[in-house]
């Protein structure tokens, strides 16, 4: 949230903060007594979006809704859900928008594959270019070496 200080952005942020009130991220009363479950809850929370905030996960957000979601995640974990089941439970109710890590389903594979594909393409183009650059040197050098090669061959045959 650093970035350029634009009026629009700050107005929205201000609005979100005024609406949410000064609650403040994870509260002591939310923390589960079982440290293993709590640790899992924290991991899950970092990948879930606070729906009324700007690009904040529910673990960091001060909004009331984020608090509700944090408590909901913990309830699911206490009820015995796995991490995936707990996330699926939230997604069923709030939609895909809640996931900060987009799934690799449907067209999303394009998003995940974009980097590696682009890297391969760039590498192939660079390879062709570098071959060309290196090849440009060859005429001079190979002219000499073929000449020498013949002499070398003759010497070797003798």
């Amino acid at each position: 949230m650093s970035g350029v200080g634009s009026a629009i952005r700050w107005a929205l942020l201000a609005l979100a903060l005024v609406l949410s009130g000064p609650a403040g991220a994870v509260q002591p009363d939310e923390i589960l007594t079982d440290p293993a479950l709590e640790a899992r809850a924290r991991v899950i929370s970092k990948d879930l979006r606070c729906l009324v905030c700007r690009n904040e996960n529910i673990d960091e957000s001060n909004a009331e809704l984020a608090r509700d979601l944090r408590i909901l995640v913990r309830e699911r974990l206490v009820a015995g859900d796995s991490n995936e089941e707990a996330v699926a439970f939230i997604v069923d109710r709030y939609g895909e928008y809640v996931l900060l890590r987009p799934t690799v389903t449907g067209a999303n594979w394009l998003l995940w594959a974009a980097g590696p594909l682009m890297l391969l393409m760039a590498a192939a183009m660079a390879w062709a270019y570098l071959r060309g650059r290196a090849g440009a040197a060859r005429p001079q050098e190979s002219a000499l070496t073929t000449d020498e090669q013949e002499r070398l061959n003759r010497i070797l045959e003798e």
Partner: protein
Amino acid sequence: MITELGHFALVLAFMAAIIQMIVPMIGAQKRWSGWMAVAEPAATLQLLMTGFAFAALMHAFITSDFSLRVVTLNSHSAKPMLYKISGLWGNHEGSMLLWVLIVALFGAMAAWFGGNLPPTLKARVLSVQAAIGVAFYAFILFTSNPFLRLAVPPFDGEDLNPLLQDPGLAFHPPFLYLGYVGLSMSFSFAVAALIEGRVDAAWARWVRPWTLAAWIFLTIGIALGSWWAYYELGWGGFWFWDPVENASFMPWLLAAALLHSAIVVEKREALKSWTILLAILAFGFSLIGTFIVRSGLLTSVHAFATDPERGVFILIILATFTGGALVLFAARASVMEARGVFGMVSRESALVVNNILLAVSSFVVFFGTLWPIVAEMAFDRKLSVGPPFFNSAFTPFMVLLGLVLPIGAMLPWKRGRLGRTMWSLRYAFALAVALALLVWAMQTGRSALGPVGVFLGAWVVSGAAFDLWSRTGRGGGRPGRLARLPRADWGKAMAHAGLGITIFAIAGLTAWEQEDIRVVQLNEPFEVGAFELTLTGVEQVRGPNYFSTMGTVTLARGGRVLSSLHPEKRTYPVAQMPTTEAAIDNGVTRDVYVVIGDRQDNGGWTVRTYIKPFANWIWGGAILMALGGLMSLSDRRFRVAAGARKGARQTVPAE
């Protein structure tokens, strides 16, 4: 009165920019030296007029002239002076005026110090630079005029957003704009070169300092913003992959790529068309950044209507300049012929690898930033692309970059041998592996992130040191020669080491951070890691334009008191906004970061404590990168002057 004069000066600057855009371009085409010479006084006039307009607006902010709309909306008479001044660019209209002032400033600098440029190239560069100015003057005057008056001035202003009332953020936008707009110089040079149809080593020598300067400013601007986020937002995050951050990060990555590819053009006369393309893209991404921030398109996918008029205007500017330049590029790029010949294993190839990694990683950020819009429009899916995506999709590129950097930086030009260069780095490699193993042994049971970060950091930093050392030759007197090495060599080593430090610090902070959230009773000590903390008091304090709940926390280690910390929760009554002011005990190897929360029913207070290892190293690395750039820039300037004088002497008889 001063306001009206400022408004008038801005209109005059607009006129001057129009003349500077048209006349020298025709002059350069027809070889009329009189017409080409118009560019210089026009650029100076434009700077003076815009500077006056800026000063007039500054005057209005300092004197709290609430008859001006922007001042009313973004200032308050009780605000400290620093934030009255920074309020000028803490809003849309004022920041656009700052933007255009910097465009004019760079144009004027090219006019004043470009005496050794070929006259036609200089005229064309200034003309393209003026065209960028014209677009933004029109944007300001027609859609975002800061000089508009209010019919009924209010008694007092509505205050600047309290989060922006902070020294770190006061100087964040100017640096960022100097960076964004600095890239406009590279863009102008690229377009002028395409029109001229000539790119040579001399061209690259003129472009490099501008790009380097822009990159330094961007580095500082981004670091300031990240540092601000760290201490201001209340939990010590330093990077959020927010669209607005990405908007500044993409040009930074491309500028870094451009810096390196321009070296190849300058030294080896290869990669010409790629360098031109990068220069166009780097500024294009600056414009995209402006568009993203101003239009509200990505603030929320549904907030495009925040200001459609401005958004569309910037989109037109973006399409005209980037699209126009790319069309020109497609038509003329074939003119650029590479001359340098080099082998597959060479410094040139290493710089190509650098460019691939930087450009593709920038593309990944771009794709991820825009994907929510694409998905919604094309596939009717409402989804988010957040930090977890960027962390896993972007990080591998930086890991690769860190791995190849020390080797690439030491490969010889033209033709090298991989084995030989790697052998000369054996000690650096051994050191990095040893440190990583040590760390791995010490932190059993945790993620691999820490050791990998230590390895990469140590590898890049010690690689940079070995690179520098290897330049001193053989035999005795090497330390003496080290001090006499060209500044460019030092700059390179410093910037690379800075990157290594930042990589290490980010990995270390992420891997070893400790967190503690609890309800604390007054004067009851509690332990976090190796530290003991005691909340000794909570007071209500009044600031100049806010009320504060200020806690006093004593930080001790092993019975010895280290410091007394004052975390605050502030409320700004005018802006009706709460902020958290974290208290940080800065240390070399760790920060202790304390935040005070709400009062609980049982009389205690919520206190969050974080131990953040190596936090300061993140910005320390960034500062080192910027210093390395400055070092290199100071070297370059001498060489530019020297090289160009030779060039000028050659061109004079030809005219």
